[in-house]
């Protein structure tokens, strides 16, 4: 395990560039391998704790992770450099793909391929949701909130920010009362 400060800005930048470009769909599995096993930036326990925080906080999990790790080794500038490393490569690729889509997107063959990819993409997202939902079986009462937000967003098209601001306090209150022992009761 290396000590703080030994990981330079350029190592952080290229490290996260590599992580970003090696991961399709699930970048996180690659991130763990690269950060813990290959580079030894964090121990396994450190990674798990940090990952828990990054998953829980809003925003892209892997972007959160890059900020935390960058900040840990090189402060604010390290956080910026790591985040840029994560985003620059994919940014260039997606703009190239976006330009190709703008030029050739109308072709029937491209439309057909994208329909197939979209169906798989939907499956990948749903599977992630199902996997996450398995954890809720321990706290079945909270499933009401999953269902509520699903209905509000998919069927009623309510603005997400409003829905979150409305539901989160209630959901935390219920969580506190039923599952965490209440500090208010």
């Amino acid at each position, binding site marked *: 395990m290396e000590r703080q400060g030994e990981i330079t800005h350029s190592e952080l930048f290229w490290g996260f560039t590599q992580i970003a470009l090696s991961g399709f769909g699930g970048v996180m599995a690659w991130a763990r391998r690269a950060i813990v096993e290959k580079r030894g930036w964090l121990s396994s326990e450190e990674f798990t704790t940090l990952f828990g925080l990054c998953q829980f906080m809003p925003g892209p999990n892997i972007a959160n992770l890059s900020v935390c790790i960058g900040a840990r080794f090189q402060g604010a500038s390290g956080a910026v450099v790591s985040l840029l490393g994560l985003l620059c490569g994919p940014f260039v*690729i997606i703009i190239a793909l976006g330009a190709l889509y703008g030029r050739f997107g109308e072709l029937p063959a491209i439309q057909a391929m*994208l329909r197939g990819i979209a169906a798989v993409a939907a499956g990948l997202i749903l599977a992630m949701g199902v996997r996450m939902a398995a954890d809720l079986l321990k706290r079945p009462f909270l499933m009401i909130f999953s269902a509520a937000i699903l209905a509000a967003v998919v069927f009623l098209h309510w603005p997400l920010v409003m829905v979150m601001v409305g539901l989160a306090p209630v959901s935390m209150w219920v969580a506190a009362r039923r599952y965490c022992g209440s500090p208010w009761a």
Partner: protein
Amino acid sequence: MGIILEIMLQFGMLSLVAFGGAGAVLPELHRLAVVTHHWMNDATFTHLVAISQATPGPNAIIATLLGWHVAGLSGALAATTAMCGPSSLLIYFFMRFWEKLHGTRWRLIIQTGISPLAIGLVLASGCIVTRGADASWGAYGLTAATVLIVLNSRWNPLWLIGAGALLGLAGVV
């Protein structure tokens, strides 16, 4: 300039409620881009999601592509910055505070209370993309098969995406 400001404001606000990652705010991005602002139609939105899933890197890259489609390079830069900036700032300042909360009941309550919302959002994103523009029975079948394969195997998603492209080309979807 108006459209860039609009992207910055809307995506920036989403960044702060994207519990469960950028994938969780797809329904809201859909609402903004298709329903509210008419920046694109349903089919284009679904295609852009498909392209972003086939691109390596964080899921937030969908914001970049939407921004690009709406307002070119400045749109892409604005959308990416807005999607990643506020949440990154938040975690930067929250990191140390969170470590102090370690093992407290408050932390447990926040985590337990937020998780069902994150799960609901990810499932909602799946629904939005499944519904897509011109979803057929073939597409539903492919989506269902993908869910089953992902839950029961450890295949790299890239193979599934490739298979989806081929099946689409073959006219199955």
